[in-house]
């Protein structure tokens, strides 16, 4: 515990930034979220589960399955899902399918800018094991090495019904207090960062983009 607390006070190196930029960016590590109390947290989880706001960022071909969700036939607003334009307002990051290295860099940046508690839904087999792009030079194979993933939705591509099932499963997990992606990311920050930096070779942003 003591060790962990010391670590959370360490500063990040921000080696990717130029010297004159370092003062402009934050160098604090991500902080873990401490639950408030059993009943308060239960109420908060109920509220969180019923207002899942999606970051409107289609990262791969799977994003095409998000459009029908918004239409009258599937109508995702019934479940409290709504697309939001910026990471600061969003709570759920939907990774839509294959992820190239260039996109991953933007995804990491967006994920870190989202306010906690935040959840990641990865849809499509590409995020699980690379899918049909498993031997490509430019797409990652498994997303959980770079971001903490709460729900995987299989399929290539999953139908909107599968997405709805995935969102409902996510709601159950939130209500049961089983989604701890934010703390997982903060606790294993060095491991995630090492994996990310292994493939994003021109790391020219702060280590933690808060």
């Amino acid at each position, binding site marked *: 515990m003591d060790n962990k607390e010391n670590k959370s006070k360490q500063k990040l190196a921000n080696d990717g930034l130029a010297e004159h930029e370092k003062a402009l960016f934050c160098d604090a590590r991500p902080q873990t979220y401490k639950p408030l109390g059993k009943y308060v947290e239960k109420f908060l989880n109920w509220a969180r589960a019923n207002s899942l706001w999606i970051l409107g960022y289609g990262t791969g071909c799977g994003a095409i399955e998000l459009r029908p969700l918004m239409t009258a036939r599937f109508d995702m607003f019934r479940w409290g899902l709504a697309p939001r334009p910026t990471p600061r307002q969003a709570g759920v990051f939907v990774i839509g399918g294959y992820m*190239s*290295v*260039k996109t991953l*860099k933007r995804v990491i940046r967006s994920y870190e800018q989202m306010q906690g508690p935040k959840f990641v839904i990865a849809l499509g087999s590409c995020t*699980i*094991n*690379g899918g049909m792009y*498993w*031997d*490509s*030079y*430019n*797409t*990652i*194979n*498994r997303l959980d*090495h770079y971001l903490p993933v709460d729900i995987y939705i299989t399929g290539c591509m999953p139908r909107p019904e599968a997405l709805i099932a995935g969102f409902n499963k996510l709601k159950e997990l939130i209500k049961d207090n089983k989604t701890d992606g934010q703390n997982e990311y903060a606790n294993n920050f060095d491991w995630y960062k090492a*994996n990310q930096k*292994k*493939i*994003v*070779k*021109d790391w020219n942003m702060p280590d933690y983009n808060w």
Partner: protein
Amino acid sequence: MQEIINKLIDRYAIEPIQVRRDNQAFVTIEKNRLPDVLTWLRDYENYTHLAFITAVDYLEIEKIQLTYMLHNYKTNTDLGLRVLLDRAQPEMVSVHHLWKQVEIYQRELHEMFGIDFPGSPGLNESFALEGWDEIPPMRRDFNTREYSERTYFPRPGRKTHDPREYMKQKLYPEKKEDK
């Protein structure tokens, strides 16, 4: 089509010309004459549309072949101009002054095949691959599978089948393989 072929032969003594269809032909020319021919085709012969530039890596003969595909809206014909470049030091004359979009093609070719186009704007900026430090990925001696396994943490348990053998096994399990 025959008309433009005759003109090309008369004017530039270019042969052989491969006629693929009655509205499509390909010629191979020397790389230094390409801007000449392109300019003439664009300004005099109505080949105003550059459809694409593409590269093929011929590992066996140590060459990289560039194809400039032109389209003529008046006669609805396509003409492909081909250039062979040395594979070890591929360098080509830039033609970005003829069509603006050539810049983008040349940036992409530079990144994916390592072809140099001296004087082309923004050539050294990264295009799709940021911070790439291997040999260009579209070269045929680049092993994309080996690179992927080395880099992207493959999830264990993936199984692949040869579709032909797999269906044979599944449909006719009693039959032995002929030898």
